[in-house]
C-alpha cells in the first residue's frame, strides 16, 4: 500500500463537524469534472491511490479513468463497500426484502435466477457474494488491490459476533478479486481480536487514529500499544479528528506511531493536499 491514500468524503458532502460545510461541498462537487480535477491535482502531487465508497457517482469517475489509460496507468482504487446510506434508505423505505429485490441481480423470488436461489436457500454467503459483485461492477478494468468493508457494516457484524461472515468475506475477496480484504472500523481492538480468532492473520485495518482520541473505542493509550505491539497493517483515518486538531500536530502524532502503514486523508484544494502530503513526508522520516 502507498504511504498516502486519498479519501472521498469531501466529494460526497460528508463532514463530521458541520452540516453547513457538507452542503457547501455538495454544491462544489455537483459535477464529476470537479471531482476528477481534484483527483488529478493529487495525482500530480504523487498520490496514486484513491480510497472511495461505492457511491453511485464513483461509476462516472471510473468511466473517466478507463477512458484515459495512459494518464492513470499506475492509478489504484481501494473500494469500500457498501455505500451504507443507499441500503439504509432502501431498507427504511422498502423493508429488507424490498431492498434485496432492488440490489440482488435477478428476481429473488425466482429460483431460476442465482439471486433467487440464494434467497430461497437462505444462503447468506452466496447473497453476500452477489452483493459484493454488484458493488464491484463499476470498477471493472481498474486496479483494485485492496477492497474494504465500510465501518457501518464491519461494526454491525462485529457487535453481532458473526465472526464467520468476516472469514467468508475475506476468502471471497482473495479468491474472486485476487485482492487483499480490508476492514474499516471504529473499534480497532475488538475487531483485531475477532479477526484473529477466526484465523485471519495480519489484516489490513483502517480506523480513526488521532491525538484527540476521537472515534477511538478504548482510548489513545490502548490504540498506541496495539499499533506498537500487535501484528496487523494499520491505516490511519480521521487523523485531524474532523478538524479539531491542527494539521502539523495531527500528522506529527500519527507519523510518530511507527507501525502505521498508510495515512488516509481527503482535501479539496491544491494547497491543502500539498500541505498534508508534505507534512506526512516530513514527519515520516
Amino acid at each position, binding site marked *: 500500500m502507498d504511504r498516502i491514500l486519498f479519501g472521498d468524503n469531501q466529494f*460526497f458532502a460528508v463532514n463530521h463537524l458541520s452540516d453547513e460545510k457538507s452542503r457547501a461541498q455538495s454544491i462544489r462537487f455537483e459535477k464529476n469534472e470537479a471531482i476528477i480535477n481534484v483527483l488529478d491535482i493529487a495525482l500530480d502531487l504523487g498520490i496514486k491511490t484513491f480510497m472511495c465508497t461505492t457511491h453511485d457517482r464513483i461509476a462516472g469517475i471510473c468511466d473517466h479513468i478507463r477512458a484515459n489509460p495512459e494518464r492513470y496507468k499506475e492509478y489504484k482504487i481501494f473500494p469500500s463497500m457498501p455505500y451504507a446510506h443507499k441500503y439504509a434508505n432502501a431498507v427504511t423505505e422498502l423493508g429488507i*426484502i424490498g431492498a434485496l429485490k432492488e440490489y440482488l441481480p435477478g428476481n429473488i423470488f425466482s429460483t431460476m435466477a442465482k439471486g433467487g436461489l440464494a434467497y430461497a436457500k*437462505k444462503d447468506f454467503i452466496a447473497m453476500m457474494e452477489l452483493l459484493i459483485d454488484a458493488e464491484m461492477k463499476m470498477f471493472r478494468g481498474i486496479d483494485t488491490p485492496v477492497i474494504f468493508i465500510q465501518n457501518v457494516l464491519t*461494526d454491525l457484524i462485529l457487535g453481532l459476533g458473526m465472526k464467520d461472515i468476516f472469514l467468508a468475506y475475506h476468502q471471497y475477496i482473495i479468491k474472486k478479486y485476487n485482492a487483499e480484504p480490508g476492514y474499516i472500523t*471504529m473499534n480497532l481492538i475488538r475487531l483485531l481480536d475477532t479477526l484473529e480468532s477466526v484465523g485471519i492473520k495480519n489484516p489490513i485495518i483502517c480506523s480513526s487514529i488521532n491525538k484527540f482520541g476521537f472515534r477511538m473505542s478504548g482510548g489513545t493509550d490502548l490504540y498506541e500499544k496495539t499499533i506498537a505491539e500487535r501484528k496487523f497493517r494499520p491505516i490511519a483515518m480521521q487523523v485531524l479528528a*474532523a478538524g479539531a486538531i491542527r494539521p502539523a500536530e495531527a500528522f506529527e502524532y500519527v507519523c510518530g506511531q511507527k507501525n502505521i502503514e498508510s495515512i488516509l486523508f481527503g482535501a479539496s484544494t491544491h494547497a491543502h493536499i500539498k500541505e498534508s502530503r508534505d507534512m506526512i513526508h516530513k514527519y515520516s522520516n
Partner: protein
Amino acid sequence: MGLSHASIINAHNDLNLVAVCDSSTLILEAMKKYGSYKTYSDYKKLVDENDLEALFVATPTKFHADMVVYALERGIHVFCEKPFALTLEQGEKMVEVATRNKLVNQVGYHNRFIGTFNFMKKLVEQNIIGNIYHFVGEAYGPVVVKSKESTWRSQSSEGGGCLFDYASHVINLIEYTIDEIKDVDGVMLKKIFSRGVEDAVYCGMYLNNGLSGMLNVNWSEETYRKMSTQITLFGTQGKIISDAQEMKIYLKKENTKLELEKGWNMRYITGLTDPVEFNLRGEEYSAQVDYFTKCIQSGKTDNVNSFESALRTDKVIELIKNKSH
C-alpha cells in the same frame, strides 16, 4: 433497526444478549446461523422461556404497547424505541405499569445523548443568552423523495408519517433543552410525495415558561444527505444555533466562566463527546444503552428519556394532529 440494537447490546461488557425475536425468517436464520443467541418469532415465548433482566423493543410503534406491558408485568426493565405509542391510552398504560413495578423505562430519543444538545441545555439553564424570546426547531432529511411502494411508514394508523417519525425527535428535543410544550398553533401538515401521510410539519409552539417559537420539519428534503436536526435560540444577550455536530454561539458580552468570547464562538461535537466502549453509527446510540444498563445496575428509575417524557411528546403530536386543517 433492531439489528443495530442487537449489535450494541451484544458488544456491551455488562450485557448478555440472550435471545432475539423478529418477524423476518431471513433475519432469524442469519442470527441462528452466525450468532450465539436464541431466536424467536413469538415475543411471549421469548419472555416466558428465558430469565430476562431487560428487554429492548425496536418494532414498529403499533406493537409497542402489548410487548412493553407484557415484559413490565413480569418484572423486566424495558428500553423502547420511538415513536412511543400509537394512542395516548396505550402510552399512559405503559407509564402506569412501569411506575407501579418500579422498573427502568427508557425511550430511544438519542438526541438527548448528543454532546452539542446537552451543552445547549446547560447554556439555557444558565441564561447565557439573556431573555430568550424565540426558538426554531428544525429537522430535514431525504426519507421520501418520490412516490414509492408503501410501508408502515406511509400509514399514519401504524405510526408512520413525518409527524410521528421525524418531528417527534424535534418535539422531544425542544422539551429536553428548553421547556415543555403547552400548546401549538398555525399547524400545516403537507403531503409532498406520500398519499396516506404528511411529509412536512410546520407550526407555532407555546411553552410552559411563556416562550414561543416555530417547528419546521420536512422528510422529503433531498438536499440533505441524512437527517439533520437543528435548534436555534434567539435571546436578548445572544443567539445559539446547534445541530448534532456543531454549535454556534453569539454573545453580546464575554462569559469567562464558560470560556465564551464576545461575538461568535464555535463548539464542536469532537470536544463534547464522551468516549464509548463500542461505537456503531455514533456514540449516542451506545451511550443510551450504556446509560440504561447503569440505571438498572444502580436501581435508578427516574432516568432520562423516561416513558413519561416520551408520552409528553406523543401528547404534543396528538395536539398537532387535532389542530391541523
